[in-house]
């Protein structure tokens, strides 16, 4: 029998105990109530273990992938003994160049870039409440591509200008999408639709620019717009590292607000969240993360789109943000290891492999989601 846990005292449903039997009944009831409460308490506290386990596994995999990337990357054969000093920048000759100047920044950059892409995507998916509404889908990547391709095609000698131009392109794009969707507040649906539209316009401009390019320019532009962590330098790794730290701080500030927002604007407002301010802050921070990361590694596809949904399904009770960041790092790093070492196709730009790995997972998730919903 389910003892009436439903109603508290004072509702008058249970007659007051008047005799010994009544007192015993009362005691049994109280005892059952305490047992139920203890069980509920345990349930509320438990199940963090799954999250801790998942995080630990991903961290181990990430460390393994970093090691693999550094040891396997490229064709140069480095003696084992030369690797440890080169890792801390005290190697000699070839080892120093290959390990410290090439493979280490590449591996770290892949992991860090993947992490910020994943986080930016999760921010957007949470705040817009739509798995499709990631920065790359609503135009940040295509905006960045316009900038980068314009520099590559029109002023081929300006090497340093590419990151800045892509950042500029992304910023202009965000500003346009933001302004066009503004109606006394940001409506999620308008942001997505206008973002997709603007993204198409930007892609058309990129295609037009490509037709102006020389053969060499087209090749460079294509490589850039696929996205690659090849040739990353320490300053870029420093930028990405700063972004990850910035993202971590932002994520902890936004965490409770985003949790409330997942219940809808009205419920969130009723729970004391300043919905409008939070939405704008998260969108701006997410855009900055995505745009700056894109300026360093190019628009690596699918990372910001799939990491959040995979994290949510992997461990329904979270911690989703940490898992998303780790998955993003692991996805880009793993894709890059394949991009460098896979037989027949390597070396290819990293972005090719995130798409090949990411697209099927994404389609599977979406199809499963569709059949599972309602």
């Amino acid at each position, binding site marked *: 029998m389910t003892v009436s846990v439903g109603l508290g005292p004072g509702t008058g449903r249970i007659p007051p105990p008047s005799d010994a039997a009544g007192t015993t009944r009362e005691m049994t009831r109280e005892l059952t109530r305490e047992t139920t409460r203890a069980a509920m308490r345990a349930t509320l506290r438990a*199940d963090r273990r799954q999250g801790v386990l998942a995080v630990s596994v991903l961290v181990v995999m990430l460390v393994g992938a970093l090691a693999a990337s550094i040891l396997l990357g490229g064709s140069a054969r480095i003696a084992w003994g030369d690797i440890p000093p080169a890792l801390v920048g005290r190697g000699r000759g070839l080892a120093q160049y290959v390990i410290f100047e090439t493979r280490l920044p590449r591996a770290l950059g892949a992991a860090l870039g993947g992490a910020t892409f994943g986080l930016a995507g999760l921010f957007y998916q949470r705040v817009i409440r739509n798995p499709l509404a990631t920065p790359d889908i609503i135009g940040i990547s295509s905006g960045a591509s316009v900038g980068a391709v314009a520099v590559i095609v029109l002023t081929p000698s300006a090497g340093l200008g590419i990151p800045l131009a892509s950042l500029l392109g992304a910023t202009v794009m965000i500003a346009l999408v933001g302004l066009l969707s503004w109606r006394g507040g940001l409506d999620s649906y308008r942001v997505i639709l206008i973002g997709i539209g603007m993204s198409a316009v930007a892609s058309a401009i990129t295609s037009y620019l490509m037709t102006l390019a020389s053969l060499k320019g087209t090749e460079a532009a294509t490589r850039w717009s696929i996205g690659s962590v090849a040739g990353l330098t320490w300053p870029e790794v420093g930028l990405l590292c700063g972004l990850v730290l910035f993202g971590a701080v932002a994520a902890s500030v936004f965490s409770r607000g985003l949790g409330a927002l997942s219940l809808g604007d009205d419920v969130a407002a009723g729970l*004391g969240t300043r919905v409008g301010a939070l939405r704008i802050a998260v969108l701006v921070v997410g855009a900055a993360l995505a745009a700056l990361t894109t300026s360093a590694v190019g628009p690596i596809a699918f990372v910001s789109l799939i990491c959040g949904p995979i994290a949510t399904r992997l461990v329904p009770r979270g911690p989703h943000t940490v898992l998303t960041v780790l998955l993003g790092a692991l996805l880009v790093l793993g894709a890059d290891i394949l991009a460098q070492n896979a037989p027949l196709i390597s070396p290819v730009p990293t972005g090719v492999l995130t798409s090949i790995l990411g697209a099927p997972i994404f389609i599977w998730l979406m199809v499963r989601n569709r059949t599972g919903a309602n």
Partner: protein
Amino acid sequence: MTQTDTLTVDPQQELRAEAISVGYGDHLVIPALSLEVATGAVTALIGPNGCGKSTLLRTLARLLSPRSGTVLLDGHDIHRLPTKQVARRLGILPQSPLAPESITVGDLVWRGRHPHQRLGQRRSTVDEEAVLDALEATGCAELVDRRVDSLSGGQRQRVWISMALAQQTPYLLLDEPTTFLDIAHQLEVLDLLIDLNQSRGTTIVLVSHDLNQAARYADVVVAMAQGRILGQGHPGEVITAELVSQVYGITAEVMPHPVTGHPLVLPLGRHDPRPAARDDT
């Protein structure tokens, strides 16, 4: 226990709308309306679709800003109070809220503690006890580890009410809490609200489409049409054949409920005979 602060009725407690006008775009839904919510009572807002009852509820809960006039919560303009402070005094359950995919009952109810928590603060025992109290009060104790999307409509609504209860506010506003529920679940939810009102002294305001339920469960009925209040007070005084005709534009026979004595509204369609009693007046 943790509820003691809400058990004692604060003498300064009040929720009041003063000459508010509310609208969307060019459309003015409520022109200059004033209402004082009866503290410690259950108030039902009734009226036809589009009469502004949901708009009024949402304005009282600060989800909408009035174009003119003010909503006062405990003597302060609700729009000048910090959002979290409002959320600790007033809970709002919108119509058919959506739970995020795969969230568990416990995690959802836990979100109700949001206004009581500060950045970086860990989950406290006070919060935990509040969540347990809320789950217990709604009979959701056994559901705590279930996924919200696996529950029935009635269970789901009870879980949402638990979330609002975990917020431990002296005011609870609900927009059509019984819509889409079958009759058994409707009664379950309404009985639960009465329990809360009686055991915790929670002031409840709800929007209802069911006149008979409003008459049976509310202490105060506020009848609205076209953004104006046409009648308010005890259901026995407010719900009359004249008012029903005025508010909904329908003919109805109103008689005392044979068991409870509350007014019972029996609407009559075009094909029904006219009520004899009203013909000769």
